[in-house]
């Protein structure tokens, strides 16, 4: 079921720059070394929300560049292999961009399944990239424990799509 169409217009500051800053903020806040009853704070990959939502809102030259920057930030901030998250985010962006005619306008439940698929692809790419780079991959459960909080961020992706999806009907 597709939603209705509108004719509002938004600047890249609203749908690219501010969400990117919000993703950075979430990442930095959740990296605070706190433990509650022995458990750490969750560590979702917040920019995956943008890698999924941006191509559905509209194709853009700025979005891949922003994702490259966000991925580099994740690698530097978490101290991981440089290039790991840019690759995963951009592959997700490219795949969603490729299938946006199929995905755009789907209802929330369907979008969640597509989002879950995109997250799994991103983690699959990250896993095998690390395995090829270091010769060893992470254990299964830590990967699951990062996938789950990332999936929990789906409402943010849905909200972003709802807010900007109908901004320019020329991209529908």
């Amino acid at each position, binding site marked *: 079921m597709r939603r209705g169409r509108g004719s509002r217009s938004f600047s890249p500051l609203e749908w690219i720059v501010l969400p990117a800053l919000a993703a950075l903020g979430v990442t*930095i*806040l959740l*990296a*605070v*070394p*706190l*433990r509650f009853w022995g458990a*750490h704070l969750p*560590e979702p*990959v917040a920019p995956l929300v943008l890698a999924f939502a941006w*191509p559905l809102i*509209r*194709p*853009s*030259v700025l*979005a*891949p*560049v922003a*994702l*490259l920057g966000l*991925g*580099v930030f994740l*690698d*530097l*901030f*978490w*101290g*991981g*292999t*440089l*290039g*790991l998250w*840019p*690759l995963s985010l*951009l*592959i997700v*962006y*490219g795949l969603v*961009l*490729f299938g*946006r005619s199929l995905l755009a306008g789907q209802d929330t439940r369907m979008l969640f399944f597509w989002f879950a698929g995109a997250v799994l692809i991103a983690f699959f790419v*990250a*896993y095998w*990239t*690390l395995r090829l*780079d*270091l010769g*060893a*991959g*992470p*254990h299964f*459960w*830590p*990967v699951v*424990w*990062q996938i789950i909080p990332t999936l929990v961020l789906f409402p943010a992706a849905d909200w972003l799509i709802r807010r900007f999806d109908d901004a320019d009907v020329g*991209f529908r």
Partner: protein
Amino acid sequence: MAFRDGPFEKLKLPVAWTAAAAVIVALIAAVMLLLGDRREAMAAENYAPTRQAFDTAAAPVGGVLSLPGRWLRGAGSYVGGYFNAVSENRRLKAEIVELEQWRDQARALSNLNARYEALLGVQPEPPVPTVGARVVSDARGPFANARLINAGANKAVRVGNPVVSQDGLVGRVVGTTPIASRVLLVTDVASRIPVMIERTNARALLAGDASNNPRLDFVRGEDVIQEGDRVVTSGDGGGFPRGVPVGVAAKGLDGAWRVKLFSDRNPVDVVKVLLFQDFAQLVSEGELNEAPLAGLNTAPSPSPELAAAVTDAANRRLAQEQAAARQREEAILRARIQEQTRIEAAAQAAAEARARQQATAPAQPGAGTSPAPTQPAAQP
């Protein structure tokens, strides 16, 4: 002239195509970054200036953001301490009684160990200075397990320094800036640490896989590990001092031996950086190749009786060595005389043989001429 006024005025590309082109260019950039990264090398020169600049900026931000949590924890600890003071006092008194026995044993063993080291001339490991630091940022994902601490090169922290908490080993420094350092946790996928089982001295490699309990690989020997065995650093390779507590061995669900880390017992918000360096870096090559003479500096002064006995023994040993040397020289002299005698006897026998030959020569005519060769010389 504006772009739209030129020959490209009529050129219109679909936005989706330009976005796809941007994705491809960005992907190429990501792959280049990936190929250029050398995180697994863990050397100072591989910690790029980009990472240094980023850590320098991130450390103060993380420090500010972690302040509320630290205050909350401090307040909670204060309140908890107030209400649990009596029970904690009792527990601590019992612990002191138990620890006093261990203290006495430790002192006695330490004294005995120092004597043995002095007697054997063993060069003991120098004391390792430490630097305290706070954790300001924490990465706990499956692809990176690292922490940012607020002590850096300004406090003499160097790449490779081990980092410990109050309970045990946390990781090692993989990058430094003047004010902050990046610590790779023992649970990170790239972490490999030589360890040993304290009970059997069996060596193994502690390999992180992003789980809370890193794996024990390459365990040498059979049946050398039991559940609950303490695992400590072995010091092999010189990267870590020997004997830093790591955890206890446990069998994982996948059948592999794993280690329950001591550092997981309490929150790791304050750590200690051991300013440890490889032994080969501490001393010059000349000093390293010298005989171990540490015992001469550390042994106690001998009593007069012991000194007299040592002198007597040294004199006896010297006299024995001199006597042995004299005997060797006499044996050599005798051998030379015998050799000279043998040579002279041989020369005399040869002279007598020549004289006999000359005396018998006139009785054989033509004996002085060489006979004509009957066979031609062999051709080569």
